[in-house]
């Protein structure tokens, strides 16, 4: 062996090939099967893609680095289930490009936070967390009252469709309008959003000012959708990892 290596050290191409081979095996064995086995490929039948408004909120969530303090992955451990709710399943994030599971809980997990608080609570909390929770160390986001830029949403939906997220032609064509209508329940487009996405989606004025669609509308719509995209997030077999 040592002799073999002694010779290998004289050959730069040999080393290069050796390194590439040695460093490829593990990744291949662990990653490739995930694209074939049922456990990870199956999509819940009722999983709906995010609405344009929620998607815009997700972008803001990424932009502001909320994921650096919040996880969205309840592990199958008793205390997590008691604290946050049913543990997260693979299918729930099938349409998430990228996933936002997170790796640090400076703040609580958010995978089950949809519906936990009112919109007004979120608006007040995001504008100034310490006004609602005095001991909080979460940053304040007063600039979220800016109007939402909806212009890129159509092309973004189209890009996601190319990657397998089931957005229809109508959804893509109406993306910008749907984003506005979802936060204007009395507008003409409001019924169309429900029709295209699901009867269960929330059409509401999230930030308390109907006239304008703001980044706050989008972010709160996104937060309220967490854990609400499929029923498997709530009815599930008993945890196995305890």
């Amino acid at each position, binding site marked *: 062996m040592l002799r073999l290596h002694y010779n290998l050290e004289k050959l730069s191409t040999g080393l290069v090939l050796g*390194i590439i081979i040695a460093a490829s095996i593990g990744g291949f064995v662990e990653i490739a099967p995930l694209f074939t086995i049922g456990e990870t490929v199956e999509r819940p039948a009722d999983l709906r893609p995010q609405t344009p408004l929620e998607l815009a909120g997700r972008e803001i969530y990424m932009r502001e680095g909320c994921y650096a303090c919040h996880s969205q992955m309840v592990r199958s451990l008793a205390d997590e289930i008691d604290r946050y709710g049913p543990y997260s399943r693979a299918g729930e994030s099938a349409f998430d490009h990228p996933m936002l599971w997170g790796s640090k809980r400076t703040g609580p997990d958010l995978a089950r936070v949809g519906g936990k608080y009112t919109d007004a609570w979120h608006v007040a909390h995001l504008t100034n967390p*310490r006004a609602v929770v005095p001991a*909080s160390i979460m940053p304040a986001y007063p600039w979220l009252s800016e109007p939402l830029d909806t212009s890129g949403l159509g092309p973004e939906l189209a890009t996601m469709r190319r990657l397998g997220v089931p957005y229809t032609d109508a959804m893509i064509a109406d993306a910008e309008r749907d984003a506005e209508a979802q936060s204007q329940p009395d507008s003409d487009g409001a019924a169309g959003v429900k029709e295209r996405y699901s009867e269960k989606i929330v059409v509401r004025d999230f930030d308390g000012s109907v006239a304008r669609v703001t980044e706050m509308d989008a972010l709160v719509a996104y937060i309220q959708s967490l854990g609400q995209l499929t029923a498997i997030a709530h009815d599930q077999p008993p945890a196995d990892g305890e």
Partner: protein
Amino acid sequence: MIASLSIAQRRNGLAFALCLALLGLLMAAAAQHGPMVVHGAMALVLGIALTGALARAVYDPPPEAARASFYYDDPTRFGIAMTLIWAVVAMGVGVWVAALLYWPEATPAVPWTSFGRLRPVHTTGVIFGFGGNALIATSFYVLQRTSRARLADELSPWIVLLGFNLFCLWAVTGYLMGITQSKEYAEAEWYADLWLVVIWVVYFVLYIRTLARRAEPHIYVANWYYLAFILVVAILHIINNLALPVSFAGAKSVTIWSGVQDAMVQWWYGHNAVAFFLTAGFLGMLYYFLPVRSGRPIWSYRLSILSFWGITFFYIWVGSHHLHYTALPYWVQTLGMTFSIMLLVPSWASAGNAIATLNGAWHKVRDDATLRFMFVAAVFYGLSTFEGSFLAIRPVNSLSHYTDWTVGHVHSGTLGWVAMIVFGAIYTLVPQLSGRDQMAWPRAIEWHFWLAVTGTLVYVVSMWNAGITQGLMWRSYGPSGTLTYSFLQSLQAMAPYYLLRTIGGGMFLAGTLLCALNCSATARAATGEVAASDRPLLPMPVE
């Protein structure tokens, strides 16, 4: 810089600078508004500045032919300067971010100073800016010395360094303006990622061409590690960053991976960024500078072979230990855990090999703060890999995951190991590259050493306490079977530790600042002399 290029190289450089300016112009023109315009403008300005400088000097007298009988160290000098600049800036942001967790109102209410945008500036700045520049700069130096050959050409090292720093700058300014892929340690957007691929290819080609000119038949261990760093980082970077831009005229892209597959690809990347960026390259540094500084050969050649292939093969499997108890299939988690434990063998073989090398030179460790930096680095390498293998065990991870214990582990690795070995290498290199026998302020090294060690210990110990407290509070049940503590109570328990961590980080930063000043004082007093023994052998290809 330009004076050392041949006329042909100046022309090629000019062409490169023009292309860069054009690329910047194209980006700005296509995007019309938003962050991509700013990034285009940066490339444009850099391109124009380089074009101007080169155009003025194209027909200046060519460099002396005798240059071929010296090593080419200007890029290394520049790389070290960039290392120190990034170190001060990014660690400064680290201290700021740490302060924000204790004192959340410390930042004005404008978007770019928000915690979530500054944190990736810290991580990218330290890993890529500080660590990356240090790796590139030392790799050029070590490659030439261990091959006894001059770099294959004078232009490409500059393309690598300038291009790499442009990537870092694009990345961190992007986060501040709100563009990010949100993948940890791979937040930079698609055009920056593509640019890095181009730069990396130039780097690899330069490395291989220089190796081919070596006058030593054997490729020295340090180069195996640098090669693994270059190759595997390329593979990881390309696969993890595969994305479809929403439009070529905007920064936004959609990653092709989703859900569980994305999580696995992300942590396959994430942990191997640790392995091949924060470990392999720095082991290369250790394998060169530790023997040089201590004047002792590496203790065991066999052990270095074992640990090299062990690290290269095992590390790739362990990414799934970031996903214990999640929706990732159980068997993948188990593989990750198993390989993480096996990984302790090659890791400790490297650490042990380094420490055993110091046998017989302990008096030098006592007297020479520079060598002591390297010794402490090897010790922390051993400690943090032991801790890592321990954290990868599933039940342990059930407590530690999501808590500040992870952050403690991260900084015992990065402050204790990565930063210390870099400082050791810098204090060895800078006097030598300045033609002096020691740093301008030798006593400041001693000060830096103690600031760094104390700062690291304060940081790491406070985060261990924080993490374990958090983990225990989250899982503690009262007699009636309900959770004892609210999340908020666990948060309030963190305050003293966050304060302590900020202080520890401040000490570490003070030491880094001292190092930067010391290096600049040394460089300003440079003599320009080169030791007679520090020369390449005449070119005679061995392959």
